[in-house]
Each structure stands twice: as structure tokens, then as C-alpha cells.
């Protein structure tokens, strides 16, 4: 077998690999930037719930021969609002609200998949991701929207930090807690819609959860944890793309398993430090 550096250099000659690396890195940063707020507010599974919603929306888009990304983003945003409202108005706990919406969406997706017999193969690629076959227009949309998400998180960083630590105090300070909750829901919906191309609807929540919980094993400050989680996220995506290319493994699964490996390593190191 050829040296890894040669294989990586060879991989980088391909346009589809370069696209995957660019889109994957930007989406990875988005996932980790949002992950820290969602994990610490115990909303980790909202990613999972919205990913299930996106499964249904992809099925709708494929049935209508429309662009899955352009259909998924608005519908997922609406679903996130619905989850927030169920949480507030129906006095349901967050996990119950997410469960209701996501299971309904999956049922709808399965029903649509049974109606549209021709697109089941495409739908499978959204279930488990297919970043290596990402199209040029999807790369452009992903890059632009990822930069918007990253900018919005950085611009509102202090307010989101206060909201995450102590929502009641953030409300007393007049930081627009309601507005920030909506912003977080919108940004998460966009990121999920973009991220399902990388690891698929089944695995997207891992991109939100793993980098943050791995970084939590090391860093002490909030900003430090945020940066570290972004580094873990991007590293796992880059490495995952190369490994999957070299060994011909499914990319999404490799990325998630790399994230899991990083977490176990970080957890082990922390345990050793404590002894």
C-alpha cells in the first residue's frame, strides 16, 4: 500500500474531495458552535428531532422533484418553532416535544417513501449521508449559510452565553432571551439541514453533541471549550473524509466513529489526570 501522504495528495487532486472538505469543515464548525449551547442547555436531542423532520422534508422534496436543501431549511425552521411553542404553551418538557414532532415526521417520511417508489435510493443517501457526491450548488449554499451561522453565533456570543448559563438572569438583564431562543432554533435548523448531507439524518446529532462533550473534558473557560470543540469537529470531518476515501468506507459513519474515539480518548485522559 502507498504511504498515507501520497494517498492524501492523490485525494486532494479530486474536485469532489475538495468540495467535501470545504463544506464539511464549515458545517462542522457550525455544529460545534451551536453544540455547546444546546448540550449545556440540555437540548442536545433537538438536533436528532430536527434531523427526523428533515428526513420527511427530503422525502417531500424528492417526491416533488425539488431541491432537498431548499425544502428542508424552511420546514425544519418551522418545526423548531413548533417544538419551542409546544414546550412553552402546551407545558410539555423539551424531550417530549421533540419526541412528538420527530416521530410524526418519520412516519410521514416513511409513508411518502412508500408512495414514491423511484426515489428510495436517493432517500437512503440522506439517511446515512453522502458528502462525497455533494453538488456544486449545494457546496455554495452550504458555504454561504455556514458563514451566516458562524457570524450570527459570534455576533450574539455574549447574549447566548448568558442565556445558556442562567436564562432567568438573562431575562432580567433584558438580553432578549425569547429572541435568542428563536435565533438558536433557526440556526440549529439551518445547520441540521446542511449537515444531513455529511452524516445523514440518522447521525447528525452526533456532530452537535460529540465535539462539545469531548471539549468539556479538557477546557475550563467557555470560549476555550467552544474553540476546542470546533477543532475536534473539523479534525474529525477532515480525517473522516480521507479515511473513507482511502479505505472506501461510508464517510458519515467514519466521521461519527472518529468523534466517538476522540471522546473516549479525552474521557480516559481526564480520568488519568484525576488519579
Amino acid at each position, binding site marked *: 500500500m502507498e504511504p498515507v501522504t501520497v494517498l492524501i495528495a492523490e485525494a486532494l487532486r479530486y474536485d469532489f474531495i475538495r468540495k467535501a472538505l470545504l463544506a464539511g469543515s464549515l458545517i462542522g464548525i457550525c455544529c460545534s458552535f451551536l453544540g455547546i449551547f444546546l448540550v449545556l442547555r440540555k437540548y442536545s436531542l433537538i438536533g436528532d428531532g430536527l434531523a427526523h423532520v428533515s428526513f420527511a422534508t427530503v422525502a417531500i422534496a424528492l417526491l416533488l422533484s425539488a431541491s432537498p436543501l431548499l425544502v428542508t431549511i424552511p420546514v425544519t425552521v418551522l418545526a423548531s418553532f413548533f417544538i419551542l411553542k409546544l414546550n412553552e404553551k402546551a407545558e410539555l418538557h423539551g424531550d417530549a416535544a421533540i419526541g412528538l414532532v420527530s416521530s410524526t415526521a418519520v412516519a410521514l417520511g416513511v409513508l411518502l417513501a412508500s408512495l414514491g417508489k423511484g426515489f428510495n435510493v436517493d432517500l437512503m443517501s440522506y439517511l446515512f449521508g453522502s458528502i462525497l457526491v455533494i453538488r456544486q450548488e449545494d457546496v455554495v449554499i452550504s458555504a454561504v449559510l455556514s458563514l451566516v451561522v458562524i457570524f450570527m453565533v459570534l455576533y450574539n*456570543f*455574549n*447574549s447566548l*452565553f448568558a442565556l445558556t448559563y442562567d436564562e432567568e438572569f438573562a431575562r*432580567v438583564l433584558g438580553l432578549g432571551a425569547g429572541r435568542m431562543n428563536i435565533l438558536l432554533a433557526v440556526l440549529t435548523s439551518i445547520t441540521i439541514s446542511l449537515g444531513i448531507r455529511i452524516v445523514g439524518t440518522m447521525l447528525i446529532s452526533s456532530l452537535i453533541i460529540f465535539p462539545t462533550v469531548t471539549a*468539556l473534558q479538557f477546557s475550563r*473557560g467557555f470560549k476555550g471549550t467552544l474553540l476546542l470543540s470546533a477543532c475536534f469537529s473539523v479534525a474529525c470531518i477532515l480525517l473522516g473524509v480521507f479515511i473513507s476515501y482511502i479505505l472506501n468506507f461510508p464517510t458519515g459513519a467514519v466521521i461519527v466513529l472518529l468523534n466517538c474515539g476522540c471522546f473516549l480518548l479525552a474521557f480516559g485522559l481526564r480520568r488519568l489526570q484525576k488519579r
Partner: protein
Amino acid sequence: MLSDVSFTLAAGDYVGIAGPNGSGKTTLIKAILGLLTPASGEILFDPDFSRPQSIGYLPQIIKLHDRIFPAKVQEIVSMGLLAQKKGSRRLTRKDRLCVLNILKKLELMPIRDSRIGNLSGGQQQRVLLARTLVASPRMLILDEPTSALDPKIREDFYNILKGLNEQEGITILLISHDIGSMGRFTRKMLYLDRKLIFFGTYEEFCRSEDMTRYFGPLSQHQFCWRHLDGTCDCADR
């Protein structure tokens, strides 16, 4: 629900708010903080008093015990300045100096880079007090701030509040179930039971016949004995 509440606070007042569970204490402070809008009536402030910048709020510490939360003491205290900021709410070099000053004042400098979740209950409460004081509020509202603290730390905490009230003239509203301790530090009492039952000095509270009737056989003397036998160096004496 809370009704029939009318009272006036003067600048520099130190008022203890007490009452049974569900009596409306938290509802009252939420209305003052602007988190709840009264169904009827008004809460009026001096023209030069602006909400939220002029009010500092310290919640119950029990809500904030999250060991994994990755925030340093300095980051938590800086949060108190955000109400004064607009747009992206970026903090300046001057803001960071304000944070360092309040950390020095409350003797928190040695732990300024520690993770909040690794601190003791007393240290955490001091950090949250620093977060509240960093914006130089004119009024402090505290919701059972000492309920999770041991007696020694509780005593220290009450002494810090007393200093803020007496030396800096900060108006304080303090919710507590510990009516006996309140008498040693607060100057006035506000007693609620879904409506205003009593508002006046602690001395008046102890001698009030209305309160004696309200409390029944044990009367308020169970809290006031030191006040009544003259052995208390209480704030209103």
C-alpha cells in the same frame, strides 16, 4: 396570584420579604424586575431609575449547581455588564477593569480563573453577587440567597450585604424564610400571604398586634425574642 399590595421603598432601604410558601414573594420580585406584568396596578420608579440597568438580581444558588458548565469566574462576573451594552454586547478593556475591581473587592482574585462548578456553595454565591454588583446597581434583589449555605458562610454573606447597604447606600430587597436572621440585618419587613399583610420596620413587626393575631398561639415572638428582650444589635435600632 398576589393582590392588594401597595408600599413605597426609599433609597437606601433594606427590606426583608417573608411569607409562607406560595404567598407571592417571587411573584412580587418578578414584577419589580419586569419579568411579569401586573394584571392591574402599577410599579413606579424614580425618573432617573432605569430598569434593568439600575437593578441587580441574585437568584437562588440551588438552581445553578452545574459542575460541567465550562465557565470561569471572570466570565460569569463579566455577564453582569451585558445589560449596559448594545448590538453584539462586546466588552471593552474598561469593562474588564470593572470586573477585576469587583473581584478584588469581594476577595475573589485567587479563584478568578477557576471553573464555577468546582467552587464551594459560599464561593459560588460570592461570584454571583460579584456578577450582580459589577454593573453598580442602585437596587439589589435577592431571592433566598443563603438557603444552600452553611451558617458561618451565611453570616459572612449577610455582613457583605449590610456593608453594601450602609456604606454604598444600595437599596436591598431580600427574600428569606429566615425571619429571625433578617431582623438582625434588614431595617424593614414586608410580609406577604397572597396579599400584603405587613410593611414597616422590624421593631413594628415584632410589636404588631395584627401580626400576633396572624401568627396565632406562637405569635411572631418566635422570631423576635432577641428584639423584644433587648439583646439584639439589630439594624433598625
